[in-house]
């Protein structure tokens, strides 16, 4: 593995896969799966507590585990997977060696140490602050330190990505422009740099504050900068997810972007506008002026929405064109009905697109208006919205991709192909039920982050409209279904990675 120059050539795509890149993709992806496992167990326990029929955990454990669920899923699972994706998108797709593999390992170790530190603090009850850790609710200083280490590691990972782009260009490992997927991931990495800078600006003073070195940290300023970090991270996820859609369209139907210019322009819109739209988190806050809020959430946000609408046409269009070329031209929809629905990547991509766009996206645009934010702020409808975007959208797309990464990059044959094919369907149904249940209950006022919606211990008695219970039950059925889907994902990927049949070097088999 001297200077990371050993490589093999992929028998299917002809790409060069360098050993050092392969190891780094492996370790980051496997770690991501470990964190989705932790987050998934928490999801089940938290979900079963929110359901009054079961009300599983004590209040103390509920809030602890909810904090753990948010962090392990939204931050650790997603970011480890994205770092693996960045190494893939730069080194593998550009046929280039990875810049500084040793530094990439350092980045990995920083992220891992940070994540473990955070989890230890959260599980021992020293950081029950939710992933947003709003000041002045205070966690143990080690919690903030853990987040900072994790963020620094992720930032170095982005640096490795840009370094690899530079090497590939200098060593002329590709001709002309970079592939669209790499372009999309580059957009995600650029957004990540801004995001992580916001993270540093807010977490470093917060760490000092928790150590008692700073006393006057304005909670409103914290919220503003925190969401510069917290919302922008979601934009990294969106951008990475769209790139994965293009990738899955290639892997499942061999689709080719219909118009590279338009797709790339849409990614450019993400870079330019998406970060500016973070203030919709503060629409009901008593801090910013309405002009500020409206400019931020209308002009800027809708240009990012425009980009999503462009991708929403471009992806199905590439699939349709590819399918029609294969001869599926009967009627309006033969291209869709004859698509590879029996292969995990295709349903994962289509459901991800559908849930992200029609559930996550539309609720996001609705709740992001100044007045309707009053109706949804901090309710369970919000939780429903982002389970549509980051679970039904990003997570499902990443799950679908995993089934191709295992044979193509890790050279192991999948164990349980049938389970893998069924998995996106089950998970998608679960997530749809969760979002509908949470959306319904939240629209009637059911709060997020709440241990007991029957208010049994409250001094002043209050109970909800019984319809809240009905929607909560739907969400609970969704939780069980999605957890089954999540377990299938973890089961298939862990078994295949460790025990799957090793594939021969020239074996040109994908699934």
């Amino acid at each position: 593995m001297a200077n990371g120059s050993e490589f093999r050539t992929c028998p299917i795509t002809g790409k060069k896969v360098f050993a050092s890149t392969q190891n780094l993709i492996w370790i980051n992806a496997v770690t991501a799966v470990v964190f989705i496992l932790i987050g998934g167990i928490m999801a089940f326990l938290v979900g079963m507590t929110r359901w009054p029929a079961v009300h599983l955990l004590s209040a103390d454990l509920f809030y602890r585990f909810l904090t753990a669920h948010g962090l392990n899923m939204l931050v650790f699972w997603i970011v480890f997977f994205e770092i693996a994706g960045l190494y893939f998108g730069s080194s593998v797709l550009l046929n280039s060696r990875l810049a500084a593999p040793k530094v990439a390992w350092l980045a990995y170790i920083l992220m891992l140490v940070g994540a473990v530190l955070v989890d230890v603090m959260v599980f021992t009850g020293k950081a029950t602050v939710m992933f947003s850790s709003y000041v002045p609710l205070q966690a143990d200083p080690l919690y903030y330190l853990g987040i900072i280490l994790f963020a620094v590691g992720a930032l170095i990972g982005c640096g490795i990505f840009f370094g690899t782009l530079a090497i590939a260009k200098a060593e002329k490992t590709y001709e002309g422009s970079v592939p669209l997927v790499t372009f999309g991931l580059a957009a995600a990495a650029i957004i990540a740099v801004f995001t992580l800078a916001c993270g540093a600006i807010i977490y470093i003073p917060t760490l000092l504050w928790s150590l008692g070195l700073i006393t006057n940290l304005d909670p409103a300023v914290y919220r503003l900068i925190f969401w510069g970090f917290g919302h922008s991270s979601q934009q990294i996820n969106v951008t990475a997810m769209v790139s994965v859609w293009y990738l899955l369209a290639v892997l499942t139907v061999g689709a080719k972007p219909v118009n590279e210019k338009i797709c790339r322009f849409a990614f450019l819109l993400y870079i330019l506008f998406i970060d500016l739209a973070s203030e919709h988190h503060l629409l009901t806050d008593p801090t910013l002026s309405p002009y500020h809020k409206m400019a931020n959430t209308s002009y800027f946000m809708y240009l990012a929405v425009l980009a999503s609408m462009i991708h929403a046409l471009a992806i199905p269009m590439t699939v349709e064109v590819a399918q029609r070329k294969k001869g599926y031209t009967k009627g309006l929809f033969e291209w869709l009905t004859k698509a590879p629905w029996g292969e995990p990547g295709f349903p994962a991509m289509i459901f991800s697109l559908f849930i992200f766009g029609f559930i996550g996206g539309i609720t996001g645009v609705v709740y992001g208006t100044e007045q309707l934010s009053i109706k949804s702020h901090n309710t369970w409808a919000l939780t429903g919205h982002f389970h549509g975007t980051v679970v039904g959208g990003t997570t499902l797309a990443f799950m679908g991709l995993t089934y191709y990464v295992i044979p193509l990059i890790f050279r192991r044959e999948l164990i349980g192909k049938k389970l893998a094919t069924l998995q996106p369907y089950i998970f998608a149904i679960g997530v749809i039920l969760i979002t509908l249940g949470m959306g319904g209950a939240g629209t009637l006022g059911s709060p997020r982050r709440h241990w007991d919606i029957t208010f049994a211990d409250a001094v002043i008695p209050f109970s909800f409209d019984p319809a809240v219970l009905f929607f909560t039950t739907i969400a609970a059925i969704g939780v069980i279904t999605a957890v089954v889907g999540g377990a299938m994902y973890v089961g298939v990927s862990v078994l295949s990675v460790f025990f799957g049949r090793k594939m021969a070097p020239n074996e040109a088999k994908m699934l």
Partner: protein
Amino acid sequence: MAITSPEKYWWKPADKEEKLWITIALLWCLVLTIMMPLMHVIGTQNPSVNPMKIRPQDYRTVSEAFIEKYKVGEEKGIPIVEPPDGADVYLRAQAWIWTPILKLKKGVNYKFHISSTDLMHGFSLMPLNMNFQIVPGHDNILNMTPTSAGTFHIICNEFCGIGHHTMIGKIIVS
């Protein structure tokens, strides 16, 4: 393909369908962009428009004075306060209680000052489902006119510690 470099001249004009879709999408975004400020002007329910800062200890002082002045009773140790028409109303959030219980009149406009003396809290008025973020050090000023009589509850929907789920307040409108 999206995983290989595009052919040399990929800077191609858009197809008819693509142009049509992008135009529709852009128009829709413009409609949204116009609707947001428009609803702020013609609509009657907006979040706080003149944010103010207030130190938590000062807020405690003014809200205590307000309770002292207009107190008409007590329920389970929580003061019940009936402010005169059009008065400034102070509703204090602290872990895990909303003070005081308010008695208001239908059709009368009140200027609410809602703030916290400790952590973040979430003002969530039930069953109307209207929600505002309550931030210590900042006064969330809202002009509110009750339009129907009855008992309303305020639940807390921002996590504020282990007793968060017990934090309930009350407004009685006659």
